[in-house]
């Protein structure tokens, strides 16, 4: 029932895409298309939430499409329901935002048709119930998002982003194809129900897990497969960036969960090792990269890598616990991961919407050209502030809850019998704590440089508040951040069916705990009550304000900036994004990025400006991609000679190839 309904929604998305091709050039096409997407996303969101809450396995729908005699299988179980809810929540918000933001698009016909297609693709991946449909939908999602990345193809950087994205997406699909090949086995069990009954040997299962980690990790942006992400996400229009960063990466997380927890059967303990290593590295490296960037949207894209790292850390923990039969701990870790999936979709969308609002009102993305936007853009700035606080894991917002749950899961892991894991897990815990602290630093920098201080350019000075559609899209998501933070018990309980469907265990029912606290294991161990912390802080702030206004002087005088008695009229003297990051670059950047600062002083008497030059080396590019590119170029150069042979040589090659093949066939046992 639910599957049919959602398929119907997908069908409507696709027809909206076709409609957009037809009417893309007309005057009112933008609100019409985005409005349609908003309606359908809301419907699909409702469908997702219902199938999540009912917790039923769902019936299978087979469409006579795809491979002959197999057809396309679709099904919505609670896990799919949860991700459908996340996808369509993000989709609805992006559509709402798009109604306002889309008006600033110069060439709407380059964006409008692909936007609903992208939404349809993501929905299809989550619903797919056989390997062929899954991979087909995966490619559809990748290609439609690629088209959106290339919407402003005129800019040189975007063309490069598109190329890198295409290559990495092909790599990911290829790896996933191999993984599903192994899963399906020689008999071709394509349907997921058949795959579940098909038992793999330990080695094969391990190979599938590594392949799945590479394939989904390249889409989600795990280091070192992340290189396309910070190029592609900023290149797209802002509401599409929000979808790609906040939602599409979650579809990749879904794919990993589906393969690792559902299709593969019981896990081995060592599976979690590559997951934990890659994800812990991603969490810290992602945010360090973000700290070094100057482009607002690129900072956000790198911070997505960090959050994906956090999510995969919890998935790795869940695999570890499952392998050792610690089901309650596994359920806790998986709940933390899914909670963070929702959280990241919420606050990262707000942040990208905010970046889009800044882009619309100033035309700028470089943080060093912005500043002081809090005064002209009060609504946007407070909503972005909420999202910044949430992503920095500050209580009582939602980011803190998932992080707290993840820490609680780590605290359960001394029960693990394997020595390797007992060393690895606390190290990953330290990485998680480090990434949280760095994320707070990163978002102080983002908000402080962009919204606070004095405007650095005339464009920033003349900024205006954005339209009501964009504001309301941000407002809805930001208030959801607060709600999920102060009432986390309800979210945990709604996630529980999907956790239960995977590992046959769940966290204690939070709805029955007094005062709406959340308790991961037992009350004596740990508990947290976001609502009470919120009320408690609000009351004490109000009390302080009341007492201050009652007894203290209320006189206020506006005066020029004091600045230690050294007022300077130029806004260039305030801290810039670069200078703010300098201490952290010195501390962490030197070992990781081989950061080097060079000061170029002109000769005495020469009036040329002094320069400070910072060089950073990207370890992922240098250690992994440059050798691959070099190898490819080398092979290409060698093969290049084949192009200039005579017809005699070509015929000779064909002859030898034929003989070799025949010999192989003859000798084949």
């Amino acid at each position, binding site marked *: 029932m639910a599957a049919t309904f959602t398929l119907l929604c997908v069908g409507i998305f696709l027809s909206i895409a076709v409609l957009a091709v037809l009417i893309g050039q007309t005057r009112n096409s933008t609100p019409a298309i985005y409005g349609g997407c908003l309606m359908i996303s809301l419907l699909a969101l409702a469908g997702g939430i219902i199938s999540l809450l009912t917790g039923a396995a769902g019936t299978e729908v087979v469409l006579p499409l795809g491979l002959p005699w197999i057809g396309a299988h679709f099904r919505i179980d609670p896990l799919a329901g949860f991700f459908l809810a996340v996808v369509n929540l993000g989709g609805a918000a992006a559509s709402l935002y798009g109604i306002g933001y889309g008006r600033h698009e110069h060439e709407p016909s380059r964006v409008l048709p692909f936007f609903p297609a992208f939404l349809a693709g993501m929905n299809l991946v989550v619903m797919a119930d056989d390997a062929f449909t899954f991979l087909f939908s995966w490619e559809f999602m990748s290609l439609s998002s690629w088209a959106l990345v290339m919407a402003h193809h005129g800019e040189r950087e975007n063309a490069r982003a598109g190329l890198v994205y295409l290559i990495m997406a092909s790599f990911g699909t290829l790896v996933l194809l191999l993984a599903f090949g192994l899963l399906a086995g020689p008999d071709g069990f394509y349907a997921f129900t058949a795959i579940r009954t098909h038992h793999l040997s330990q080695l094969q299962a391990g190979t599938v897990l590594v392949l799945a980690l590479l394939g989904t990790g390249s889409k989600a942006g795990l280091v070192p497969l992340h290189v396309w992400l910070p190029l592609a996400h900023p290149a797209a229009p802002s509401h599409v960036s929000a979808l790609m960063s906040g939602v599409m990466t979650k579809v990749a997380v879904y794919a990993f969960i589906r393969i690792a927890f559902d299709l593969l059967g019981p896990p081995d303990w060592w599976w979690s090792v590559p997951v934990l290593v890659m994800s812990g590295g991603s969490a810290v490296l992602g945010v360090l990269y973000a700290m070094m960037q100057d482009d607002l949207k690129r900072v956000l894209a790198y911070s997505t890598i960090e959050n994906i790292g956090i999510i995969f850390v919890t998935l790795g923990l869940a695999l570890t616990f499952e392998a050792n039969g610690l089901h309650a701990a596994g359920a806790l870790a998986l709940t933390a991961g899914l909670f963070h999936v929702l959280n990241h979709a919420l606050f990262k969308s707000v942040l990208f919407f905010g970046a889009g609002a800044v882009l619309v009102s100033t035309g700028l993305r470089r943080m060093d050209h912005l500043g002081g936007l*809090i005064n002209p853009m009060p609504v946007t700035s407070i909503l972005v502030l909420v999202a910044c606080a949430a992503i920095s894991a500050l*209580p009582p917002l939602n980011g803190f809850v998932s992080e707290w749950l993840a820490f609680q899961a780590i605290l359960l892991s001394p029960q693990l019998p394997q020595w390797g894991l007992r060393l690895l897990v*606390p190290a990953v815990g330290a990485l998680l704590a480090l990434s*949280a602290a760095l994320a*707070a630093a990163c978002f102080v920098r983002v908000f402080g440089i962009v919204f606070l201080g004095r405007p650095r350019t005339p464009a920033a000075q003349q900024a205006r508040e954005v339209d009501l559609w964009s504001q309301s899209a941000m407002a809805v998501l930001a208030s959801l951040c607060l709600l999920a933070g102060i009432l986390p018990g309800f979210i945990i309980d709604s996630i529980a069916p999907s956790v239960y469907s995977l590992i046959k265990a769940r966290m204690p029912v939070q709805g029955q705990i007094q005062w709406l606290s959340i308790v991961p294991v037992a009350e004596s161990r740990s508990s947290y009550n976001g609502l009470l912390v919120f009320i408690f802080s*609000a009351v004490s702030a109000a009390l302080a304000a009341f007492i201050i206004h009652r007894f203290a002087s209320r006189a206020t005088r506006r005066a*020029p900036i004091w600045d230690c008695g050294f007022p300077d009229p130029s806004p260039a003297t*305030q801290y810039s994004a670069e200078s703010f990051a300098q201490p952290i670059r010195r501390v962490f950047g030197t070992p990781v990025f081989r950061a080097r600062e060079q000061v170029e002083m002109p000769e005495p008497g020469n009036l040329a400006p002094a320069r400070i030059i910072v060089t950073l080396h990207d370890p992922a590019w240098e250690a992994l991609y440059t050798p691959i590119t070099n190898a490819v170029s080398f092979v290409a150069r060698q093969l290049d000679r084949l192009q200039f042979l005579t017809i005699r040589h070509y015929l000779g090659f064909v002859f030898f190839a034929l003989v070799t093949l025949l010999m192989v066939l003859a000798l084949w046992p």
Partner: protein
Amino acid sequence: MAVIADLAIQGIQMLLVLCLAPALTGFVRKVKARLLRRRGPSILQPYRDLWRLMRKEVVLAENASWLFRAIPYLIFSATWVAAALVPTFATGLLFSWSADLIAVTALLGSTRFFLALAGMDVGTSFGGIGSSREVMIATLAEPAMIMIVFTLALLAGSTQLSSLAGFMLTSPVGLRVSLGLALIALVMVAVAENGRIPIDNPATHLELTMVHEAMLLEYSGRHLALIELAASLKLLLYVSLIGCVFLPWGLSPPGADVSTRLVGVGAYGLKLAAGGFLLAFFETTVAKMRVFRVPEFLGAALMLGLLGTLLLFVSRSL
């Protein structure tokens, strides 16, 4: 009836921390002055300073935003809530289950987040330098703190401060390597978090070295008073935290009678005095570090915390 008693204890505890915080700051200043053979201001001077600041008008920079004016209240309330969650003279506080030690760390993290934003609001180079150094220090101090929390929580089987203190009080904990490492790391983190020498100097206005003060430069009047009070509260919080976890003697258990409670209050006063004296003594014996030596100091704290956790992970008996 029991609820009312619990509520009263919680209320007394909240008022107690608020009233004692400036005294602790004054005490540390006084001891420092005496150790330097100066007379020093009275212990009550911080109260007079706060009162004086409250009566003064606020001078706001022309381009200061609403956030700049809201932040003092946010910082004060978050610090107060965090301080209220740390058992001072009694365990089993009413609100202790609403947030654990991780949440206390995160609450303090949010005060820093907002203070750093306040430093950048007006758009001066001093504010920026303070904020950027503050977040740099935090990126090491916060994970170190979390690792300390891990060590304690693994030992006691709980991140709840009341249970933690109860565990330390009742179980034969003995001398443990992990606990020792955690104590050293916690002291280092506390020194850094409160902006004390050798990380920062709370009494300086020397531009090149200041961190905390640099962020506050543009604050005046009642706003400054609130931030100063919050800073005192934070110092008190860390001393109480160390006291309740590592020196839990005298803490009155839930449902104790009045005399036990009074013993608890007395023991708490002694702990504060001892903590303040040791801090002042430490501060007079070391010199302020260069800013870029701070990562080494805090890196050591992080390593100690991690080592403490690792030791617990690899050995079940320790």
